[in-house]
């Protein structure tokens, strides 16, 4: 594959990566949010795979395969299991409506380009110029976790943050060291598992209400 083609494919993957995050703000149906996460996982795998091919690094190819299995397979499967317990989950009362959310996404993307300047300036590779995309997804994840009321929406916010950080790591440095990547992935799977179990306990103790109902603890 020539460098030019692989560069264009990388740009395509980064575009898809950011668009799927914006799509998460746009849609409310939980099942389509999970599909968007799968698309984002594919884009992330593409980024990792293309960088691995450019650098001819077998270690990064292994990481790309692992990331793909995790973000396209395991995590969406776990989310679907949460979703099946609460079948009619739909974001009913988000704190920010769709048009305000999309406007916020645009603002956050601009902010990401400003914040990521030191990263872009330092890293030598052309791929580093795309790191603001990862930072933008992290910020959109924060926004989602802060403004949505459903338990599953908050889990998706946490996952967006994680995807964004992984993208920054791949684009700026070609990926964090293997052992750190392995540990962080194991932590992510376990954290989603814990959140999945807690979601069913929330359901059992509070009923299918919004997280707004979490008002037992205060000063």
């Amino acid at each position, binding site marked *: 594959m020539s460098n030019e083609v692989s560069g264009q494919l990388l740009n395509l993957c980064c575009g898809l990566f950011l668009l799927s995050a914006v799509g998460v703000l746009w849609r409310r149906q939980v099942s389509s949010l999970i599909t968007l996460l799968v698309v984002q996982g594919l884009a992330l795998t593409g980024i990792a795979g293309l960088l691995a091919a450019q650098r001819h690094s077998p270690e990064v190819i292994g990481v790309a395969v692992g990331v793909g299995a995790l973000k396209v397979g395991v995590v969406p499967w776990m989310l679907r299991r949460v979703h099946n317990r609460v079948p009619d989950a739909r974001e009913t009362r988000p704190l920010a409506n769709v048009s305000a959310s999309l406007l916020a996404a645009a603002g956050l993307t601009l902010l990401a380009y400003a914040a990521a300047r*030191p990263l872009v300036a330092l890293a030598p590779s052309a791929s580093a110029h795309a790191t603001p995309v990862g930072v933008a997804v992290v910020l959109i994840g*924060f926004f989602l976790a802060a403004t949505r009321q459903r338990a599953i929406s908050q889990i998706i916010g946490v996952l967006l*943050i994680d995807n964004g950080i992984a993208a*920054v790591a791949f684009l700026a440095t070609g990926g964090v060291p293997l052992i*750190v990547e392995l540990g962080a992935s194991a932590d992510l799977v*376990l954290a989603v598992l814990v959140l999945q179990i807690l979601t069913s306990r929330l359901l059992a103790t*509070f009923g299918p209400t919004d997280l707004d109902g979490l008002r037992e*603890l205060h000063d």
Partner: protein
Amino acid sequence: MTTPMMLALYTPAAAPFLAALLALVLPSRIAVWTGLLAAVAVLASGVTLTTTDATLSVSGALGLLRADALTAWMLLTIGAVAVIACAAAPGYLRHEAAHHRRYLTLIQLFLACMSLAVLADNLGLFWVALEATTIVTAFLVGHRRTRESVEAAWKYVVLCSVGIAIAFLGIVCLYAASVAAGGHGVTALSWTHLASSAHSLDPALTKLATGLILLGFGTKAGLAPMHAWLPDAHSQAPAPVSALMSGVLLSVAFYAILRYRAIADAALGPAYVRTLLLTAALASLVVAAMLLIAQRDYKRLLAYSSIEHMGLIALGTAFGVRIAIAAVLLHILGHGLVKSVAFCASGQVLHVTGSPDIAAVRALAARQPGLAGAFGISLVALLGLPPFSLFASELGVARAGFASGHGWAVAVAFTLMLVAFVAIARHGARMLLGPPAAQSTAPPPSVHRGRGLVFLGIGLTTAAMLGLYLGPLTDVLDAAAVVAGGH
């Protein structure tokens, strides 16, 4: 390298891990004691590392693990608090109907993760271990499955995962800076490599990384304004778990800030981190003082007192001179001992009175003298009165602040601590003193057995002795302060 040192390097993580596996198969009345044994093993490793050589540096596991004076000091703290918390487990489990096995397994995994975090010679591995503590403690916080505890567990996992993800983004930025400065692979994130190459890190990127890392680990350390999860989680968890979370988990998270400060100072100069830490410290003290005044729940009272003490620890770290860092380290140990005793005693108070409300506890001194003594003395120690070591360390922080030209910050901080002092003293006096109310002529809910108080007494005695005489610990404390960049 000698065998005892290698043993001391691997035991702190291996012994609790083994005890966690044993807790899965052994009956819980035996697993309680193997768990206590593992905690003693962690403490023994800490003692071995602190008493042999103050300038030690032992590494193993392909350079991923390393112990120096600062690690040894943290292991000592983890071990001491773990012994108190594990000794309180039989008393706690006696009143719990089910899930003993899960409790005993998770609490040992929690210990193993904390030991691994301080032993890791790598910022990335430290992060992995710290996030793992959030995961294993999630079900401990939600152990009782009431509405309150499930809510607390949810907030705890979501807020801490998000907070610590910010720190990971900071670590990625630091990794990029370290690779650009010539680092390679895993070593690019090793504490030793970062400390030696700090001056060649790119300043703009290090500044970004520093902000993110302080914010992320600050969340887990309970510093304002990211402290919102702390009072909920610490008040809802079973008392021995609260003891571990308040007594050491907060300090283990802060340990990364202690080590990182030296690196950031070398790359950026001391002003940047100092400003961030001073802001977080004073904000934490304001939050704690304000919310302690009208507090109604005594476990939340202790949780806010932890925010207050973490604020003081951040204040001392901001000053950055060697005597300030030494005082901070002594405060970490003293606070760990005293706070774990206070939480374990509060768990027994909860059992005796059946209510978490301060207003529901009256005349404890007359009804349960032994328990009231342990709880009352631990509150006195938390207030920073002599002879306990917290008095010495608070004095040390204040002196260091004046010596380094931050008298105004010391004045503001100690005014806020005075407010907290009055609030805790007033609430504590209400719970402990006064004549027994009329209904207390009814038989007490259960006769309290004194055995559980022995370890609480030992914890308080140790804190008092440390305040009077440090003895052989002086050298290691000084060496640890130098490792953490005190100069």
